[in-house]
């Protein structure tokens, strides 16, 4: 190691409290306990030292921003893609489509953006943040789901009932599934009545988590999340597609990934039978097909 690196390594080796004080301590201070080399802390320290000057930029990396309804389906697709492209490093970040879209327009380093609603990639395209046209990949659905009640016996009209305390939906302002939930409640004519019961999640996965934990009596969540094994133990009520605008999902390659072969390869992978089968298993209809 060079002199400077050795010095920094030495600094990093010292317990945190000593970083600024070259003077000697007489009493061995308490924090040493935390850093005593048990297997865990030794490993921590090794990782820390290695990482201190590790370069953060990676050559073969693909960062995907994805709508939260893909949280479980996309994991499987990424795993399948990784089997074919073992040397690629894929990172997926989930959030509401509106939030991911805002992040992209503020310079977030995402190569691919899977949006639950095509309008967000279209806006990004209009602002010049994309390298391709938005490509539809699926159509989503919303369901009523509960861990407390039998949701399959419920309809939207039942949400005004006295046994419903809280209804979890995603934030309509930036989460497409929340907006569709709002439209469905409006179509059922109960939007005003349920106002005091609504709890707003940052994205649809959080809405599902609220319902799963029982904190919300019911949730209006994505079908793709209700199909996740942990939630699939409870039945759901599929909200008729006629009650809301379609959830036309689309992906787009961002401007920064214009020459990113991995991004294009992953995008192509979405049209393979492997990916389609996973999407179908999670309740997504293929793009363009009418859903009823």
């Amino acid at each position, binding site marked *: 190691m060079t002199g400077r690196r050795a010095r920094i390594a030495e*600094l*990093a080796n010292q317990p*945190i*409290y000593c*970083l*600024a*004080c*070259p*003077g000697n*301590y007489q009493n061995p*201070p*308490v*924090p040493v*306990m*935390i850093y005593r080399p048990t297997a865990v802390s030794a490993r*921590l320290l090794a*990782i*820390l030292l290695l*990482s*201190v000057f590790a370069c*953060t930029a990676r050559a073969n990396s693909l*960062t995907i921003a994805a709508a*939260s309804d893909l*949280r*479980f389906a996309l994991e499987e697709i990424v795993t399948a893609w990784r089997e074919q492209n073992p040397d690629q490093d894929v*990172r997926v*970040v*989930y*959030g509401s489509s509106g939030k991911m879209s805002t*992040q992209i327009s*503020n*310079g*977030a*380093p995402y190569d691919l953006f899977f949006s639950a609603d095509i309008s967000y990639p279209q806006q990004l395209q209009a602002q010049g943040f994309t390298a391709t046209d938005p490509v539809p990949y699926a159509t989503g659905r919303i369901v009523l789901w509960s861990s407390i009640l039998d949701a399959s016996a419920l309809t939207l009209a039942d949400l005004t009932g006295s046994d419903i305390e809280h209804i979890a939906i995603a934030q309509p302002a930036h989460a497409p599934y929340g907006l569709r939930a709002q439209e469905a409640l409006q179509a059922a004519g109960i939007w005003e009545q349920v106002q005091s019961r609504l709890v707003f999640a940052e*994205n649809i*996965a*959080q809405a*599902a*988590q609220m319902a*799963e934990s029982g904190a919300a009596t019911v949730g209006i969540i994505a079908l793709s999340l209700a199909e*996740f094994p*942990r*939630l699939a133990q409870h039945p759901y009520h599929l909200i008729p597609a006629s009650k809301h605008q379609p959830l036309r999902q689309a992906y787009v390659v961002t401007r920064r990934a214009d020459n990113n072969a991995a991004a294009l390869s992953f995008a192509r992978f979405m049209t393979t039978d492997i990916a389609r089968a996973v999407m179908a298993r999670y309740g997504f209809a293929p793009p363009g097909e009418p859903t009823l």
Partner: protein
Amino acid sequence: MFELGPQDWQAITVTLRLCLYTTVILLFIATPLAWWLSSGRSPGRVALQAVVALPLVLPPTVLGFYLLIVLGPRGPVGEALEAIGLNHLAFSFGGILVGSVLYSLPFAVQPLHQAFSNLGRRPVEVASSLGAGALDRFFTVTLPLTRGGFVVAATLTFAHTLGEFGVILMLGGSIPGETRVLSVLIYDHTEAMNYDGAHRLSLLLLLFSFFTLFIVYTFSRRAEIARI
């Protein structure tokens, strides 16, 4: 039972790097700042003291919002960085490091300010009259006499950075290996209904935070006893 996954280790690495860098940078910034603050009272000093304490009362979202605007590709700092061929700082490790330094500033400055005020100027003046230079005075007089303050400042800064959430979420997003720190990963685990993962990391942070405060109180007590 306590098996951490690669995602967890990655977040631990990012978090420790962030905490370590923040602590080191802040001790360099906070020491002269606290010294100046403790060397008298003037409207300028009071104003600076208020500015330093701002992160204590401001919602992290305010800081996160402003930083996103300023450090992002269309902000003054972001644009300047891009003009000289560097990347803007939004959604990057550099960005959350800047955010952490600002957000933890009071936790570094206030213990040092307290320690320097308690010390007074006399020991330094005596050393000066005996011919000690500025650096010599700092390392042989001030530092040994206020080491308790330094320990408290460093520990609190480290711990507060560890507990940071809002600023990082707004400014950094949740990019694995880059800006996904432990607190953000716990949030993410919860959203993915991976409660086991959330439990493990939460317990880890709980224990670590307890030990940190234990250290802080041990040293603040010692500092008090020393004064008596």
